[in-house]
């Protein structure tokens, strides 16, 4: 479904993606984790070409991203994206946020789009908030509307760029629940997150990135419990807030 071949990217002099090779199959849920500045967000944003790459190739659903003839609107219509800061349209109500793209891009009629949007709002548990404006919604609600907005295009792939990082702790679960149910329906998902619990439960594979490189990839237990690299070990110990290297300390 998604294939990175020797992908490189620079921001001026900074080498932000170093020789990325990664293949993601249809229906797979991939979690990308790693310290901040590792290039996780950049990596996920290259998939729908919000960030162009400088070298190598990315093939998404048979479309070659380095080919200038690739129709980006077609590509992006098939890829949903959820952002850290939700990016809902503040001048539109929840329902209109969701119906906008299906109407303007897919050419759905108002009724068709509204029906679809209502189903999705129901799915994310917000049908009672259909006419609320983004400022009237909590962070968790905004993010769920944002997920519904992406799903309204019936994408083949969903990208999540730190979807819960800007949320209050008690609002995180409502968003993760929606994502979990989505994963169970067989959606191909690429998720950048620090929510290790979610990753363990849902991810088929975890990719650990540091300094623009993929250091390790494997099943959640591989990465979280038995990481091979020293760097991964350090990161995991700080994420779990437990000194996993020192058994004695745990007994204290």
């Amino acid at each position: 479904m998604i294939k990175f071949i020797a992908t490189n990217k620079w921001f001026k002099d900074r080498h932000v993606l170093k020789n990325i090779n990664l293949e993601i199959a249809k229906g797979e849920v991939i979690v990308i984790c790693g310290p901040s500045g590792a290039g996780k967000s950049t990596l996920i944003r290259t998939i729908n070409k919000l960030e162009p790459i400088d070298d190598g190739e990315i093939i998404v659903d048979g479309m070659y991203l380095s080919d200038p003839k690739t129709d980006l609107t077609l590509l992006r219509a098939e890829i949903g994206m959820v952002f850290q800061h939700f990016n809902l349209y503040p001048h539109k109500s929840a329902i209109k946020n969701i119906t906008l793209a299906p109407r303007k891009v897919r050419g759905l009629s108002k009724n068709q789009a509204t029906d679809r949007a209502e189903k999705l709002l129901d799915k994310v548990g917000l049908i009672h908030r259909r006419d609320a404006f983004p400022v009237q919604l909590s962070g968790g609600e905004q993010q769920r509307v944002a997920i519904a907005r992406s799903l309204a295009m019936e994408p083949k792939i969903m990208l999540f760029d730190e979807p819960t990082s800007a949320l209050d702790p008690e609002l995180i679960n409502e968003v993760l629940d929606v994502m979990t149910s989505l994963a169970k329906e067989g959606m191909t998902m690429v998720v950048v997150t620090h929510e290790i619990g979610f990753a363990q439960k849902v991810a088929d594979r975890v990719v650990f990135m540091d300094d623009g490189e993929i250091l390790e990839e494997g099943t959640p237990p591989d990465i979280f419990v038995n990481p091979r690299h020293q760097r991964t070990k350090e990161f995991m110990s700080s994420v779990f807030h437990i000194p996993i290297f020192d058994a004695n300390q745990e007994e204290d």
Partner: protein
Amino acid sequence: MDLLGQLVNIKFYLLGSYPKGDVGGLLLNIIMALMALGLSFGAGALLGYSRLSCRLYIKIPSMAIVETVRATPLIMIIFWIYFFLPYIFGGNVTLFWSAVVSLAIYAAAYQSEIVRAGIIAVPRGQLEAALSTGMSRYKAMMYVILPQAFRIMLPSFVSFFVSLFKDTSTVFIIGIIELTQAGIIISQREPDKIYAAYVSMGIGFWCVSFAISRVARRLEERIGVFDLESIRPDACRDEFMLLPREKKTGEGMTPAACEPEDSK
């Protein structure tokens, strides 16, 4: 009082010598301001949008036009148009049109900057969100960016319109009998009431300018519903700087003292 004495001239202030001659006075100022605004709106938006283009052959000419006009006093533009337009179109340009065209050129340059600033002020994430749902750049602009940019522009747009309205007084220099010129004529006709004449002109400009900004305030309140988080336009300083209303004394001064004390 002199000022009340000007009431006999009120029709001349407001309409000029209208039924017998051309429309003039305050009404002419309003007409010129509205027409200049109407004519310049499209051009201004286009210029502002062109300045954001990545293509240099679009960006540089629009930049040159805007910067030239902005670096020129309005009175200069009025003279240029007054002298050059008849030269180009063969001497058949009325004073009125020459004035409106000058004001429109001037307005277009300033409006383009308002449009540009408005577009830039929309957060980048909005464009990304729109593009990521498969919208083209054009659709993203039309349905996502511009509606928001317009709300951001509104206050600067209104203050510009008020200043454009007042700037219409400059065209008296080419002999148009708008409010300023009307006042000058009256003050010359009745030199003993010169102060009253100039105060009357001021009152005329003030009333219309004030009315425009009141209407605009209402419009902003209606259109800005989504923006509950920002400071209300009529907020006073104590509210938006989160200053305490009562002056605290003694121990309450430091923020740290407000926090619950640690158990000792």
